[in-house]
């Protein structure tokens, strides 16, 4: 070949190679029965007994199955799955009855020993989700039955058992690969790349930082899922938007309401109010601040906030906080009982408080957005509203890495924060009652409000769910009067997906990849 022809030949070969892959470039998500999900990874592990992050939940729902599961968007949509269940009258003993025919991916039948091992391992290794089974003893009753026994009433046990971290693992496989019931457990590395569950999918390949792919479990004991292969890619929101529009991603999970405007026809938005709550915290510890701990100052802030204006910052699908409990969870207050802005009442309370315009530090994690809503933007809006009222909130922005410590230590004077219950059950909200975890962060110890503390005891011991829900509503009305938390809004969960996919957003804010429907 003449020397002058070599570059031309090389260029032609390159063009050939590139043209060969051009078709593949758009075919990723459209390949037959393959689904591509773009999400911003917070993945730290694929070991269900250590996993506690949204990305892990999303992926592991397909690999590990739980005794119970949600079938709809409301928290009361629990249905038996691997097991039937029965709670005793005082909500202390949950009996699970394993259904026939359940098998792991290798074809081995699931036994009650596997359930006991899975939960004792989760408790014993002291990973992130082990707190969920705090104070619970797991015991095998027979070859078909297992009990979960709590010293105190725990009606939330069925809800907890829907979480993918409660997925059942094959005891034999985990033990063979270094698993144990103590913190010395060494199975995590193995579980990061291998599946030992009974789900309709198994892990094909995983890289916790970039991509995880699941393939259909050929030996699945139940009905085959809609897709043969699911690929999860670590992609940030702006790129997710382009990918779903282009069709190279079928489902994207992190778009803000702004990004979901003007979507093309091949793309659908499924949205639900989330369990997350944005709220203002006012510290009640006089040692931290004599201003924010003044009940009249708290009242002034509560009635001075223009909630509708704040809600507009969060888009049309976000909803006002009525009480503390999210609207999808039983026991929530009706929307019309939300605190209403009353500037005259706020001004009167402020005058009564004796406040003289002193600067009040208002902390915010300035690098954090919650479902596309910038906390900094919301805090600036609150600052402006309070200024009109005569309250001098001085913004104290810092990255979440440094804002988290003083918040958890109860050292912040006032702040804007967000929170989500670990499980969609009203018992998760005990945390806000005086002396409990969230209340301590607001400098609100035991003895701060006798009425709420009496309600806490009453609810705990109340066997009737309906009555408990009523009592929770009563408690929230009290919180709306005296609580140090001023609830602002529940942002919307936005899942944008190809119109050919049908999905249901669960009360946990994600969706079940095994229940996806291909249209």
């Amino acid at each position, binding site marked *: 070949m003449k020397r002058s022809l070599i570059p031309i030949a090389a260029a032609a070969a390159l063009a050939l190679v590139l043209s060969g892959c051009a078709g593949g470039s758009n075919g990723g998500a459209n390949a037959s029965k393959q689904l591509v999900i773009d999400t911003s990874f917070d993945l730290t592990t694929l070991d269900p007994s250590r996993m506690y992050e949204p990305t892990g939940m999303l992926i592991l729902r397909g690999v590990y199955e739980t005794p119970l599961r949600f079938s709809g968007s409301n928290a009361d949509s629990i249905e038996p799955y691997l097991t039937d269940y029965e709670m005793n009258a005082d909500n202390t003993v949950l009996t699970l009855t394993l259904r026939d025919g359940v098998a792991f991916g290798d074809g081995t039948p699931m036994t009650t020993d596997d359930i006991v091992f899975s939960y004792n391992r989760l408790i014993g290794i002291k990973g992130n989700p082990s707190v969920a089974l705090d104070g619970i003893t797991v015991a095998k009753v027979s070859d078909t039955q297992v009990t979960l026994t709590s010293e105190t009433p725990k009606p939330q046990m069925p809800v907890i058992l829907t979480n993918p971290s409660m997925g059942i693992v094959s005891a034999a496989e985990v033990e063979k690969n270094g698993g144990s019931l103590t913190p010395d457990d060494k199975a995590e590395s193995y579980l990061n790349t291998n599946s030992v569950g009974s789900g309709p999918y198994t892990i094909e390949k995983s890289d916790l930082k970039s991509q995880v792919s699941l393939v259909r479990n050929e030996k699945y004991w139940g009905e085959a899922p809609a897709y043969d292969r699911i690929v999860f890619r670590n992609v*940030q929101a702006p790129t997710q938007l382009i990918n779903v529009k282009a069709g190279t991603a079928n489902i994207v999970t992190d778009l803000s309401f702004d990004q979901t405007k003007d979507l093309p026809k091949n793309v659908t938005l499924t949205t639900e109010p989330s369990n997350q709550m944005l709220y203002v915290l006012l510290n009640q510890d006089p040692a931290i601040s004599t201003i924010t701990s003044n009940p009249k100052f708290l009242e002034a802030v509560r009635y001075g906030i223009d909630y509708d204006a704040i809600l507009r910052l969060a888009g049309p699908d976000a909803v006002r906080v009525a009480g503390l409990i999210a609207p999808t969870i039983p026991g929530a207050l009706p929307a019309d009982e939300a605190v209403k802005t009353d500037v005259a009442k706020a001004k009167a309370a402020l005058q009564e408080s004796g406040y003289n315009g002193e600067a009040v530090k208002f902390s915010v994690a300035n690098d954090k957005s919650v479902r596309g809503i910038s906390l900094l933007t919301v805090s600036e809006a609150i600052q402006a509203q309070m200024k009109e009222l005569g309250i001098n909130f001085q913004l104290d922005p810092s990255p979440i890495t440094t804002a988290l410590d003083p918040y958890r230590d109860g050292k912040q004077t006032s702040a804007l924060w967000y929170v989500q219950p670990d499980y969609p059950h009203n018992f998760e909200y005990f945390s806000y009652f005086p002396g409990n975890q969230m209340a301590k962060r607001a400098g609100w110890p035991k003895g701060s409000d006798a009425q709420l503390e009496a309600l806490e005891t009453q609810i705990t011991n109340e066997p009737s769910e309906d009555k408990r829900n009523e009592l929770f509503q009563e408690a929230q009305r009290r919180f709306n009067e005296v609580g140090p938390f001023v609830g602002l809004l529940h942002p919307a969960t936005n899942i944008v997906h190809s119109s050919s996919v049908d999905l249901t957003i669960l009360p946990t804010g994600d969706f079940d990849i095994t229940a996806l429907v291909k249209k």
Partner: protein
Amino acid sequence: MRFLRKYPLVMFLTRRVGIAALLLLGVTIVTFTLTNLVPSDPVNQALGDKASGDPAIVAQYRADHGLDQPIVVQYVTYLQNLVQGDLGVSLQTSQPIAQELGDVLPATMELAGVAIIFSLILGVGLGTLAAYRRGKFTDQVLRVVSLFGLSVPTFWLALLAYYFLFYQWGILPGSGRLDPTLMPPPRVTGLYLVDSLLAGDIETFGNALSHLILPAAVLTLYTVGLLVRFARSAVLEVLNQDYVRAARAKGLRSTSVVIRYVLRGAMVPIITVVGLAFGGLLSGTVLVESVFAWNGLGQYAFNAASNLNLPAIMGVGLVVGVIYITINLIVDVAYGFIDPRVRVTS
């Protein structure tokens, strides 16, 4: 010592490696001190809301990661492990940092490597052209192009390129290093282009190459802007030297004059800039990586910092230090090959 005196290049390299080791020790001290000065508890970042309130879980986590030891002990332990090639364990994933860096570094190396090769070819070529056409229209256009490359924010350019070339016109593929339908080639180097060729998998090679073009082009534009300016001024300095005029007077072909006399003379400052630019590309591609879902060192560093993952931050600091020190060493050695006046002698 007699051997070292006999071979000055070996002595030079030995001395540089010794200095590099000291520099890296300095990097570990600075990184360790700075990360521990952040007024935040890494346990709070790693554990969930409830778990962080459970003393037993917190104690277990501190013990598992050595965070229950005094700071000095933590540092000494880190150094002891480092000498054995152990960079510690991630506070987020509990995976070895060395393994995680080994996963992300090739992705960035591949991207930055392609970008720097194109930058070198285009930057030096266009810079030389601009110098030869000094003051003329071509020179003016190239200076505007250079200014554009330097001043346009890279993330914005990346988003624009992604939107038009992928979404609107469908010329190039989208996110990631490969289409989701394809599996990565069997790992040998971690560089998909190399590994797919080693596996004889042309389809994967082509796909990886097509995924590489867009992010590499975005990175190239910035570096080209830089190189055009440096190459232009370096070539201008050399053009009027006596030895270049003599070469022309001897009747040598102009391409021969450019390559053998002009560029060789101008190459020292150009190589310095290329070295720095390559180091910058390897350690500073976080925004481009974010737009193109290219999970390399930049994204890893960003996540490590966001989550106060101390061992990962230390690991990234060390890797970036090694990158810069190695590049500087290569550049210094290259000086000797290009310019006999700076060659080490006995």
